[in-house]
């Protein structure tokens, strides 16, 4: 990023904080605490270990459910994209799962499998998988047939074709599914925790809501927005840069 872009990005963040501070001072109410007050609560909860614990629990659920959803969603998406008959058979299933509200899936999972960890993970996975399948299926349908023919002609075999011909073409679709998936899963996990778990960010936010503790709600919000930004900066952007290095 050029220094001008960095400067603009920093200035925009400062402007956001200034607007927040301005409104908070003007309203002078507990329903909108100042950024300073939120920062103090954030620090206190970090030192007490409360925030890292609940954030860690939620992150663990995120990693497990995200991995299951992405791996199985990519595999099913590639299979449906390459096989027209299977795609025709399962297309209706996909539409049904895409349109079931997240809340319904979560409630049904808890009712059918009990208020435990596996039901919570399953609820998140079922909500995310259809999105991954649809994105990867579209990517697979758009694969360059000329390159696939070249791979067949030169006897690449399945493994080599997947790694060197198919996967690089699916990369933008996988990254799209990853980014939208992270955002979606965060939100679903919070509802899952709010409804049926006794720890995690969702559980804590529910508690703060009952206490009308807006400063803590904002402190926890800042924490997970920061984590998502960190994942973007440390994992996703370098991955993007590495896989796109061949472009002019």
């Amino acid at each position: 990023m050029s220094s001008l872009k960095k400067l603009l990005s920093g200035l925009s963040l400062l402007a956001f904080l200034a607007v927040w501070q301005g409104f908070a001072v003007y309203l002078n109410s507990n329903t909108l605490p100042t950024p300073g007050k939120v920062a103090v609560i954030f620090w206190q909860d970090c030192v007490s270990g409360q925030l890292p614990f609940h954030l860690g629990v939620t992150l663990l659920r995120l990693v497990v459910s995200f991995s299951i959803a992405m791996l199985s969603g990519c595999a099913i998406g590639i299979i449906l994209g390459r096989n027209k008959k299977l795609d025709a058979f399962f297309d209706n299933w996909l539409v049904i799962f895409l349109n079931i509200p997240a809340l319904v899936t979560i409630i049904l999972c808890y009712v059918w499998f009990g208020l435990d960890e596996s039901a919570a993970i399953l609820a998140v996975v079922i909500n995310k998988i259809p999105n991954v399948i649809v994105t990867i299926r579209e990517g697979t349908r758009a694969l360059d047939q000329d390159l696939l023919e070249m791979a067949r002609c030169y006897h690449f075999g399945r493994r080599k074709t997947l790694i060197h011909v198919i996967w690089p073409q699916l990369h933008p679709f996988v990254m799209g599914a990853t980014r939208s998936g992270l955002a979606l899963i965060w939100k679903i996990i919070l509802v899952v925790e709010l409804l049926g778990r006794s720890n995690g960010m969702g559980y804590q936010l529910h508690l703060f809501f009952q206490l009308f503790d807006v400063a803590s709600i904002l402190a926890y919000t800042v924490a997970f927005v920061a984590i998502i930004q960190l994942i973007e900066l440390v994992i996703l952007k370098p991955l993007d840069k590495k896989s796109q290095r061949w472009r002019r």
Partner: protein
Amino acid sequence: MTHIRINVHSKTYPAVGQAGHHLAIANLNLSLNAGEFVCLVGPSGCGKTTLLNIIAGLDNDYEGDIIIGKQHTHPKIGYIFQNPRLLPWRTVRENIELTLDKNQSPAIIDPLLEVMQLTHAQNVYPERLSLGMSRKVSIIRGFAVEPDVLLMDEPFVSLDAPTARQVRELLLKLWQQRPHTVLFVTHDLREAIALADRLIFLSAAPMAVISEITVPIPRAERYHENAIETFRQQLLNDYPEIKQLL
């Protein structure tokens, strides 16, 4: 080097929309001697690429049989497509290495790069290559697998004349160093005369052989435009039926 027999009784494309069935090839019988360089010359859309796809095993929806050498399964094919079809996310060297067998050493690529004057560009990604350079990489890839047959589908089309001539000369140099049985498709008669041991003229669809002519010009004289032009004129006079194909 491998002998090849091609018998395609029929190749039909199914009806699409308003268009009915299209008979692309009917009763086509060809034979290539081991190490022979054969050029197929025919009008655009006559089914030349279809034939190459059938030989390469990319199109199995036809009636007939293709016999390559004594092998009946998985003959090694080098296919130099009209569009170079390089993987844009792999370097020049990686694109060639990927096609090699497990028992082939990557070191065999070095002399091929040298002949094609591409040693300096081996770690470059295809997007940074000119079309001529991409075509050369595609030719190296075809030779690197040490194929039973090398199929070339108008590999010099859309190159400017000097570049096409340079790549053609390098191709001949490579082929003379490493002779393979080659089936080369073109609709440029001068190019065909410059390269081939034998010319096979094909009709418009359904494709059939019109005439087969051996090129008597010694290889050393093929670099002279005059010799090629004289033979071309002689062909057009002796075989007036091929004029309509060009």
